[in-house]
């Protein structure tokens, strides 16, 4: 086989390889983004507020009702981030 033909064949194979690698890379990147989109999930749902005595929710010492109404995240007993400064 003439050396020029071999060179052309090798070049064509290399080009085809590069083309398909590029296609796979693009496909992989798209798949990675799809995987990531599914992983960006919201934080946990808030936990249950505690029990209330027979006196009911009205009154100064009903902690769960105060937690429900409070504007402060600490009083509201919401999930905490790890290692919050």
């Amino acid at each position, binding site marked *: 086989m003439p050396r020029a033909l071999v060179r052309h064949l090798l070049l064509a194979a290399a080009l085809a390889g590069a083309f398909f690698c590029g296609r796979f890379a693009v496909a992989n990147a798209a798949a990675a983004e799809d995987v990531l989109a599914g992983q960006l999930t919201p934080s946990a749902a*808030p936990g249950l507020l505690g*029990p209330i005595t*027979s006196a009911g*929710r009205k009154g100064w010492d009903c902690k769960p009702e105060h937690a429900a109404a409070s504007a402060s*995240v600490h009083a509201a007993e919401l999930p905490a981030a*790890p290692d919050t400064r």
Partner: protein
Amino acid sequence: MRISVLATLIALLTTTAALSQMYPGATPVPRTTSAPALADLAKQREVEERFRIGLAALSAANYKGAAAEFARVVAINPAEPKGSTARYDLAIAYANLQREDDAAAQLRAAIELDPGFLAAMANLVAVDLARGDFTEARSVADRFLALAPDSARALYARGIVALGTGDAATAREDFGKLLHSNPAYAVAHYDLAIAEERLGHIDAAERELRTALSLAPTYARAEFALGAVLLRQGRRSEARDAFVRTMQDASGDPALLNIAAAMRDSIAI
């Protein structure tokens, strides 16, 4: 003159001491021979006792025992506020027994008896999220927020429900409002970033995630989301670094650790 002043002082002190020793009068023992009145008093006493035993059972994590006590109180059907409160407490016991549908039914009944019962609404949203009923969760969260517009729990709950149902615009509004009064709450910055990302506001998402990480430096889920946002912007090297940092912080979350490792490995620099 001095003697009279001294006498006045002694008299005042004596009166104060006497006042401080006063005790409230004893509650008179009900005296009746009427059978219905006696039955009513017995029921009232039973309700009080079952509440006391039920609450003790809840604090001891004896949910089955607590459920039995509060179910009996509900069956007695006491007047308000005991009726709605018993249903609220029964729902807590049911939720801990993984009887979420029963818990939701009791909380609905509690809210029907007491339409302003915020704690019951808060717990109903939490229970609905656990049972995957986003429609009711959203409806209750809307009502909760309408009654308590500044409530951190109402804003957080509706924001989470909105993210779960693809309503990123409402989530953005709720977490933004929550952060207005609680700017150091890293979790809300993270959720706001998720809303911004879903709305295509990638720069805003990155900013919120960086704020979350400045407040909570080992917040692995925020670090992972930052990697995703950077990758979406084509900043592959920075994204890879974020996934590496996620792996360092996600030791307690094997699923996140694995996905972060896979993402790190998939990025060829």
